[in-house]
């Protein structure tokens, strides 16, 4: 589904990702761990095609096609979707307006209403997007938009951060449902999301490089025990040239 080959990425001339390789098969969900400022968000944003993340080397293949030079919207329309960690407020643009755009004329509003009811956010549909949303509402609104969009590859940036204990189940179950028909790449610090989704592989992104690949629960347990300090001693990570 997704194949990243020798990818190097810069922001404002500063190299963030270095010679990174990653393959996600159809229906697979991968988890991305790593210390702050390690490049996790950069990887997601680069896959989505945000131009401030400049690819200096390598390529990104999606469904076998090289998408490295495609714009954000071209990637979205080809089947990549992202839930933002801190989405912007857009005054006057309602959640339902965006959802209608996500549908791209595929279906009428019924789909939208059904999905909104499942996520218990019907009340949010008529509100200006992200304006005065609580942390939980923001996450659910992002997941709602993705559920309507139905991407083949779902990118989630810390979907479990800032969500209270009641809403985490709602968020977790929504993500699980979203990933039923989709491949996924999820950033998490807490690992709460692992209680809800069936993820096959976990990676540590350390200093701009993927250096471990393990079953996610095991990886999380190791991180919880040793922190990321151990990564610095790991030969795989030490090989990182950053």
């Amino acid at each position, binding site marked *: 589904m997704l194949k990243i080959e020798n990818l190097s990425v810069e922001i404002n001339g500063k190299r963030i990702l270095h010679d990174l390789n990653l393959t996600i098969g159809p229906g697979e969900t991968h988890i991305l761990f790593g210390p702050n400022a390690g490049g996790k968000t950069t990887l997601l944003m680069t896959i*989505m095609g*945000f131009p401030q993340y400049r690819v200096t080397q390598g390529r990104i293949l999606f469904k076998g096609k090289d998408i490295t030079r495609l*714009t*954000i*919207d071209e990637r*979205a*329309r080809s089947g990549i*979707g*992202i839930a*933002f960690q801190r*989405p*912007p407020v*857009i*005054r*006057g*643009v*309602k959640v339902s*307006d*965006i959802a209608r*755009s*996500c549908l*791209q004329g595929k279906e009428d509003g019924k789909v939208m209403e059904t999905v909104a009811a499942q996520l218990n956010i019907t009340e949010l549909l008529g509100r*200006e997007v992200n304006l005065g949303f609580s942390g939980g509402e923001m996450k659910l609104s992002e997941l709602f*938009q993705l559920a309507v*969009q139905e991407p083949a590859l779902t990118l989630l940036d810390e979907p479990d951060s800032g969500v209270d204990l009641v809403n985490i189940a709602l968020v977790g179950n929504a993500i699980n449902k979203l990933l039923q028909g989709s491949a996924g790449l999820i950033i998490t610090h807490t690992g709460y999301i692992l209680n809800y989704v069936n993820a096959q592989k976990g990676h540590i992104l350390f200093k701009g490089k993927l250096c471990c690949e393990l079953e996610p629960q095991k990886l999380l347990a190791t991180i919880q025990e040793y922190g990321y300090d151990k990564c610095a001693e790991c030969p795989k990570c030490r090989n990182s040239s950053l």
Partner: protein
Amino acid sequence: MTRKDLAQKAITKPSPLGENIDLEAYSPDTQEKPYIPNPGNLTTQEKQCMFKAGVTPDDRSQKAATFIQMDHSVIHSSTNQDGLELSSTAQALKKYDWLDDYWWHIVNVDTDKFTAYTELYPNNGYFIRALPKTKVTQPVQACLYLSHNNLAQKVHNIVIAEEDSELHIITGCTTAPMISSGLHIGVTEVYVKRGAKVTFTMIHNWSPQAVVRPRTGIIVEEGGIFLSNYICMKPVHSLQMYPKARCVGENAVARFNNILVAPAGSTMDIGARIQLEAKGCHAESISHAITTGGTIFSRGYISGSAPDVKGHLECQGLILCERGTIHAVPELEGQVSGVDLSHEAAIGKIAEEQLQYLMARGLNRAEATTAIVHGFLNVDIDGLPPQLSAEIKKAIESSEKGLF
């Protein structure tokens, strides 16, 4: 000194704001137009122009009253509701002696050459009055139409919402499509009495060479609410207005919402001047301004001279072109302790972050821009009846089509 004397003295007095206009460049007179009992019989072209200014001559059943003035002639005036009075101001002045107490009572006759000119050479205008406790829930529509090229139209309007009444007015000002230039001066004095509510929605649809100088004053008494919505999204050579609202009774409210789009060649100098003079008064002035090449001055002034008053000014500006000007000029003046006055302004291009957010949902850059601009202009305005809200949205959407 009589009003006429004051006006004579001020006939060359320039306005401190806006381009100085030579009144003699416009013809003062034109021929009278006949009265039309059914404005549905106006030409399609005339009706289309009126529609763009939010006035629907065909659909009068959904309106509490309809007033249409073409050039200097009142061509239609009718009401559908008891307790609601509508006529030309000339007629009303003949009918009511007491109206003299309301005439040039809020707006000074010698404010500038435009008010002076209107006093010396008046051409009608509307008189709208809701009797005490009358709730006029359907909008009253009033249209001021310029059909004669290079004409100076000078109207003097009076609105009175008597105690505990409610009035929703849509006033549409427009020029005929073939008009290349013209001058419109509209003096409007609005009285919101104790416990009354007035919403005053003005939609302008001028021609690129038109010069427009509204001179508006409002007095809001105890517990009264005045809500103004002003929409101008079409080219106009020079438009300058700075309506002044005085909240004189306790807990009076005045709110202004301006939606402005200035294309190249247009200068719009718009503001709201609000004086909070009694305890617990509340004011707000919010402008959403877009330039696509023109110049917008967005002014605001709120003063608080009584305790527990609250006022907020806001200007949101979008520059959707390489060169265009939005100039926000907010002023706040607190005169006693216990006032709470604030302002906020932001001017720039559309945030890249917002565009990219929508693009990540599959909209291309042009679609995302349209969606953001649509949202920017369609900010929900509280306090309007649903029908009026829908009509404003319709007017904005029809103007938006010309934006891209």
